[in-house]
């Protein structure tokens, strides 16, 4: 009998202390959806980045405004200025030939007969897209595939045995050129665990790279069709 009472009271005490402990902690905590918290954090990070960039942009534009005020006296000046702006913007948009150090990559289908599903042996649009993406991540300032300049509006899609880039069908082997720091670009394709490394070593896709002091990348030379997008610049729009 005494034993039973003893065990009962001990259990009661233990139960009570657990309850008090949890209760105390619960007061200070609130359940927030994991998703919401990370969404807010990411939004914060994104906005803080923007603020940094905006402050930079404001300074750049203020300087430009000062330059305008000092130098524009008549229409000839405006025209000259606009032409200069256009030239600079075309370079950023990819409408000029570029030269500089960089890398040359040659990708081709697996030449051996592996007996696997043929899809594992050939170069797909995804492969080219990811390689281009990795090059950009490694600081590529200009990229071309088989002589066709790749810009943000360029598609890279499989069309049967060809890959369509800028509306033209191109076939393997694919020669990708990129200008940037040649070692960094090379590492982006050759270092272990990169996509380039994986398709080469696990799928047998031919991937050879060549670093060079002098790479020439042609300008984007196709039609520019901006029919739907309008710049938001005028008040009231």
């Amino acid at each position: 009998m005494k034993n039973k009472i003893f065990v009962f009271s001990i259990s009661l005490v233990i139960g009570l202390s657990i309850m008090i402990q949890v209760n105390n902690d619960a007061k200070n905590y609130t359940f927030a959806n994991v998703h919401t918290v990370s969404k807010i954090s990411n939004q914060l990070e994104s906005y803080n980045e923007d603020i940094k960039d905006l402050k930079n942009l404001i300074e750049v534009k203020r300087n430009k405004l000062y330059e305008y005020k000092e130098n524009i006296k008549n229409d000839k000046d405006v025209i000259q200025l606009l032409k200069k702006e256009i030239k600079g913007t075309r370079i950023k948009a990819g409408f000029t030939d570029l030269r500089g150090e960089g890398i040359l990559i040659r990708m081709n289908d697996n030449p051996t007969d592996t007996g696997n599903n043929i899809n594992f042996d050939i170069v797909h649009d995804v492969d080219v897209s990811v390689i281009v993406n990795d090059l950009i991540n490694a600081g590529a300032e200009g990229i071309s595939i088989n002589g066709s300049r790749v810009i943000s509006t360029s598609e890279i899609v499989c069309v049967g045995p060809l890959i369509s880039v800028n509306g033209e069908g191109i076939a393997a082997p694919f020669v990708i050129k990129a200008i940037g720091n040649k070692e960094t670009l090379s590492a982006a394709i050759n270092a272990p665990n990169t996509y380039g490394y994986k398709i080469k070593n696990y799928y047998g896709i031919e991937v050879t790279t060549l670093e060079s002091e002098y790479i020439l990348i042609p300008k984007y030379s196709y039609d520019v069709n901006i029919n739907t997008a309008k710049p938001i610049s005028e008040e009231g729009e």
Partner: protein
Amino acid sequence: MYKKIFLTIISIILGLIFALQYQVVKSESGEIITTKKASELAYELRQVENERENLILELEEIEKELREYEQSVSIENDYIKNLNEELNKYKIMAGIIDVEGEGVVLTIDNPSAQAQFDDYTNNIIYKYEYLLLIISNLNAAGAEAISINGQRFTNYTEIVPVGSHLNINGVSFVPPFEIKAIGNKQTLQSVINFKGGVIWEMQKLNYKIDIELKDSIKIERYMKPIDFKYAEEINEDE
């Protein structure tokens, strides 16, 4: 007698294990945050949002003044107008100006938690190449401007997995991903809904995909500076 000692020891051990486990869960749980922290975060977000809005307004003021110089009225009016149009065209291609127009908005989220538990590769972070393919297809359909979670897609935009996030233009994001594209909305839609295409494939894998056609979409500019450190333009002889 021995029974009692034995029981006591077991109880003590159990108690210790329980207490330890409780502490470990408490410290590792990312799901419980202090009430104070939650409201602090929300407050901070509002502050930062306001600062960003104000800076954007300030920038727009300066740009308005700049435009007044660039669009000055005169007898040379047409030529200057054409030059301005050309400048805007290239600014849109470069991604350095805000744009507006009809198009589509895609929202992509991971399949259910169960599907991810069954196979960890059922995750857009792991399968980020799907996003690249979607963008490529939108381009094939004539998209004129694209953004992902507000980040303008430019010649210099990367999409890379970093831990459990995707980095786009250097900013990290978690799903869902909202892709906006400005272009002919019918054409964009047909390419997206193409049977056997990327979206179709993703839907079969139970990714949650929402497609909305809109008459007016606003896509913000790419805000980072674009400076070439290795490339030099080759001057065209005009």
